[in-house]
């Protein structure tokens, strides 16, 4: 049975590229966007399912970071990455009313977009975005569409109109099953995301990226919590590199320092 699969993918702030203004205020507008780490696993899971069962993979995204005018290009680049991995079409929502993003608003936009796409058999998302780590959007989309939800799947397989997954909880692994259509969020262990070849990257430029506003989706601007400032947590460390003529001397210095700090006892 061919499957229509929607992947929820985020153009996230890259936590490895934190930029600050003043001493600790995160300068969001100066940080680049990248395809969120676990969303790559979601794209991979969707493309694998398509390769096995046939069908189509839609990659969906909601722009959540300002400034919208400039970020649209970055969002498209992120979508190209998913398209190069094997998704067929991209559908993105860009609207000032959704920026800065919040899981409440983002999920409502995703749900409306999925309704607009028509028959979708499976929705896959990453367990959390790498910037805001809320683990809400996939569950919220499931609730809004009234679909079964499996969160934190470390593996999934599809067959006979059902999805079977292993849910990775703190103390146990649960093998669970739900009828399609369903929503699944995957962890980093679910698969190894492919690196697209140059030809695939080039081909991705011919695939469509469709853009929507809230009005296109028939949505009112949602009320969402207000995101205030983001500050880098600074822990001041001593940053002392211990040096010496030989390793014995360095080891002695380290032991002396740790005794002085009171963290080991002589």
């Amino acid at each position, binding site marked *: 049975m061919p499957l229509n699969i929607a992947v929820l993918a985020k153009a996230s702030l890259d936590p490895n590229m934190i930029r600050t203004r003043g001493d600790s205020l995160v300068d969001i507008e100066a940080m680049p966007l990248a395809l969120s780490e676990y969303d790559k696993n979601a794209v991979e899971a969707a493309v694998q399912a398509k390769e096995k069962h046939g069908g189509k993979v839609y990659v969906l995204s909601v722009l959540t970071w300002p400034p919208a005018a400039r970020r649209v290009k970055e969002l498209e680049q992120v979508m190209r990455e998913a398209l190069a991995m094997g998704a067929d079409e991209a559908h993105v929502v860009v609207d000032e009313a959704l920026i800065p993003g919040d899981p409440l608003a983002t999920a409502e936009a995703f749900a409306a977009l999925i309704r607009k796409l028509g028959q979708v058999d499976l929705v896959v998302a990453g367990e959390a975005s790498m910037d805001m780590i809320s683990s809400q959007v996939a569950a919220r989309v499931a609730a809004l569409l009234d679909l079964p939800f499996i969160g934190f799947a470390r593996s999934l397989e599809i067959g006979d109109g059902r999805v079977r997954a292993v849910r990775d909880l703190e103390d146990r692994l649960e*093998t*669970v099953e739900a009828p399609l259509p369903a929503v699944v969020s995957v962890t980093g262990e679910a698969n190894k995301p492919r690196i697209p070849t140059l030809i695939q990257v080039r081909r991705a430029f011919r695939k469509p990226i469709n853009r929507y506003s809230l009005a296109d989706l028939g949505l009112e601007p949602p009320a969402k919590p*207000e995101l205030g400032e*983001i500050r880098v947590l600074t822990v001041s460390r001593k940053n002392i*590199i211990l040096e010496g003529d030989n390793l014995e001397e360095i080891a002695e210095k380290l032991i002396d320092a740790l005794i002085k700090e009171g963290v080991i006892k002589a």
Partner: protein
Amino acid sequence: MVKALAFTMEPGLVAELASHTRRLAGEAVLVAPKEAASKAPAGVYTKAYILEAGDPAAFAAALEKVYNEYKPDIVLTIASKNNTTAAALLAAKLRLPMLTEALEPRIEGSTLTAKRRVLGGRAEASYRAQLPAVLSLARGAAEPLQEAGGVEAQPLEAPQPRVTLLESKEKVREAVNLEEAEIVVGVGRGFRSREDLKLAEELAQLLGGVVGASRPIVADYGWLSEDRWIGISGKKIRPKLYIAIGISGAPQHMAAAMDSKIIVAVNKDKNAPIFQYADYGVVADLYQFLPVLIKKLRERLNR
């Protein structure tokens, strides 16, 4: 007066939840599995509902009924995976804002403020939301409230779940408790084989500490079990002393070790990011340095 609906699918988190609930709310009810609901402290809750854990969606559906009857100002839980999932499902149905792993929550009038760790745990975001709202509180932020139970507990029915459980398997656990260890020795990709981890184990034993690991050691090589994994998705540690050996210092790892009092890094690459996060750094091959350090420690500590 703030009215709270507190819930947990994990019975073990009930004392921590009670502590937050008492601080934030003037009146509250609890929804939890029997073993937790029966211990609901009367000083915090006016009523408890017994609801067995099962699937988060079924749990959330039952919560929604209590919400609509009780009409709380805030829904509170502690951030386990299932609790956060149930909270998000409930929040979506009710169109409520929600903050995951919230820290320092405060309510003034009808306004909620809280903070969250974001960007790989390296930064903190401040939020403001209007009540009613849902809070999935970060674990370990409140002293568990140990108080005798004794409120009326009434059973609650959950609908049949659409996600069916076929099998549940306990995770392999070793007898380590990284989160509470006072001394942690972390191992990373600088180790060339599983056997070589003995060096780190010897050092940990000597110092009365435990061995933890970065993601590749656990997830890619499988040399140690998952409860040894120090990282945002693994365990967060707060020891007096963290000795990171052969670990480059990826942000996801460092964020989980940031609350360590003293950090020592041993790495042969002098440009490894780990040195920026360290109090004391040793630029050396771990295979040469560790035996020397262990020998010197034995002499100094008389062990």
